[in-house]
């Protein structure tokens, strides 16, 4: 959309110039340096970034987008959703369904119309809700609309009846839990426990090829950047300030004539759509989507990323997503027997020692420097 000049001005105007330098640097590294190091140096050389790191980073980038979405609704609007994994997964399923359809007759049973799991569960024709997913534009649209619609309906019900705090968190958890059980059912026609897998290619580009993976990685990086700008645009608007007001004193906002219901609904729906987008990018990179993505534990982890990075600071959410998942990747390989201890300790340490998250820590260090200087 074309921004009113002063709107865009507002978006980029900031008291903290460091932020923009940092973001610029990050963008440079993600969009230029890493791809270059992946393509140019010969494999094995010290500088070379191997393909698996690229796919890994691609995955993290999707998580980071998801964390951003979470930060918008939790960090700024004070709505702790324990169901955001559901929106992520729904977006993923939408994309998965597209890639499933585009396998076509290359499936093991060579059925051009039906995905394999339907063939051997004796499905005769494609269920109606699979219609249209052979079109990319449709799938992409659904990846946004389905989570958005669910969030809108659910949020409307919940916020209208003024369900807040823990109660909201728990029913969002109930939502994702119910969806998980539902998607586990093979009758649902989403592949049950195995979910959607065996993808061949996306838009004709074979997923196995490193170049495709690199492209997906770049796309994820781009989406993360745009998502960041979008969310920042929202939170720097007057609406953003109203969100914070809702977070801090919801009832007071009502007496000012604003409707917290609408504000929350907006944040929740937008956030859900972002989550869906992240999911849609995530699935082609990991090559599988299955109901365990809906599991309540996953949704709780999203909140943890945000908390670890620093709630209510967009950068923190991204940082947290990278830190926690990086730690996971590293520890599950380096200390398979101990990693849960370390991760658990990390969460406790952060909540006790760094109530403002890693970003807070960074802030403290900076203030210290200022004092010492």
């Amino acid at each position, binding site marked *: 959309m074309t921004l*009113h000049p002063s709107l865009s001005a507002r978006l980029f105007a900031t008291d903290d110039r460091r932020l923009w330098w940092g973001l610029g640097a990050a963008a440079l590294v993600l969009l230029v340096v890493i791809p270059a190091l992946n393509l140019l140096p010969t494999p094995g050389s010290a500088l070379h970034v191997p393909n698996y790191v690229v796919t890994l980073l691609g995955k993290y980038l999707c998580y980071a987008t998801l964390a951003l979405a979470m930060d918008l609704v939790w960090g700024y609007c004070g709505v702790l959703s324990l169901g955001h994994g559901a929106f992520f997964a729904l977006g993923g399923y939408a994309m998965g369904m597209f890639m499933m359809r585009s396998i076509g007759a290359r499936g093991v049973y060579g059925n051009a119309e039906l995905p394999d799991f339907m063939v051997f569960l004796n499905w005769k024709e494609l269920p109606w809700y699979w219609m249209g997913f052979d079109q990319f534009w449709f799938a992409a649209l659904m990846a946004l609309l389905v989570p958005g619609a669910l969030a809108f309906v659910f949020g409307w019900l919940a916020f209208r009846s003024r369900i807040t705090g823990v109660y909201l968190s728990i029913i969002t958890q109930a939502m994702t839990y119910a969806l998980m059980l539902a998607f586990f059912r093979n009758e649902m026609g989403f592949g049950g426990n195995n979910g959607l897998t065996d993808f061949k290619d996306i838009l004709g580009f074979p997923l196995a090829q490193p170049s495709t993976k690199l492209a997906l990685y770049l796309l994820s990086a781009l989406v993360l950047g745009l998502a960041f700008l979008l969310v920042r645009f929202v939170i720097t608007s007057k609406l953003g300030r109203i969100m914070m007001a809702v977070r*801090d004193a919801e009832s007071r906002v009502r007496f000012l004539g604003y409707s917290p219901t609408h504000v929350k609904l907006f944040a929740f729906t937008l956030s859900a759509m972002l989550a869906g987008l992240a999911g849609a990018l995530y699935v082609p990179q990991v090559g599988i989507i299955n109901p365990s993505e809906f599991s309540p534990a996953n949704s709780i982890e999203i909140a943890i990323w945000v908390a670890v990075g620093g709630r209510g600071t967009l950068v923190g959410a991204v940082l947290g997503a990278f830190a926690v998942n990086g730690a996971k990747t590293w520890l599950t390989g380096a200390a398979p027997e101990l990693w849960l201890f370390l991760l658990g300790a990390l969460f406790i340490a952060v909540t006790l020692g760094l109530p403002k998250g890693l970003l807070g820590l960074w802030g403290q260090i900076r203030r210290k420097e200022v004092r010492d200087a």
Partner: protein
Amino acid sequence: MLDDSFEVQVDEPAGPGVPAAGSILYLDGVSVSFDGFKALNSLSLILAPGELRTIVGPNGAGKTTMMDVITGKTRPDEGDVLFDQKIDLTQLDESEIANLGIGRKFQKPTVFEHLSVFENLELALKADRGTFATLMFLLKSEHRDRIDATLARIGLADKAVQRAGSLSHGQKQWLEIGMLLMQDQRLLLLDEPVAGMTDSETEATAQLMLDLAKDGTRSLVVVEHDMEFVRALGAKVTVLHEGSVLAEGSLETIQADAKVVEVYLGR
């Protein structure tokens, strides 16, 4: 007059025929109870447009509950609450009521601690409250001028960029009053506006109240314990007791009233 009352009769939901004619706020037979405790007991009160009214009463007399009922926070068990003669407030929620032109200042000053003083006023600023409108909202110079004017009026001009959380109690009171001004509402409900203020601050507040009432476009309901302040306002006084009106009149008359002295001044 007659057809006025008739008109009201028509729009009024089931309620006794006391005409709300010419009132800005009209409460009749309003009762509220929490777990058996009757906070309001068929309270009736009529406020004329442009009127300044002070309400006094011991703790638990139902002053705050009355405000909750008017502003839609609490639904009355029975009784009518009409704004501007015909709008039934009991059917509306807080934000709708606020948008009708009823502003409220809380007993315990509640401002948005994480926002700056300026931003607090900006949120209060009279403007389209719609979600997308606020998303695309741009602060125009006339807005800025209004905010600056208010800042000056409530004496926080030098604190504009400070986080509201860092203000003193009295300053928060002022800020909240300032937010009321920004909304420029037709009916202002102020719950103990001078609590925790120094005498000079109190005087200034009293002056402010009088200014607001002067031009007759706004009506004010001020709940206050501070008799000096009440006297300074010099307005009609309503005494609440156990959820209903005990006495009404000038400060002198009610101070002469035996019942009042017994339940209230008789400390």
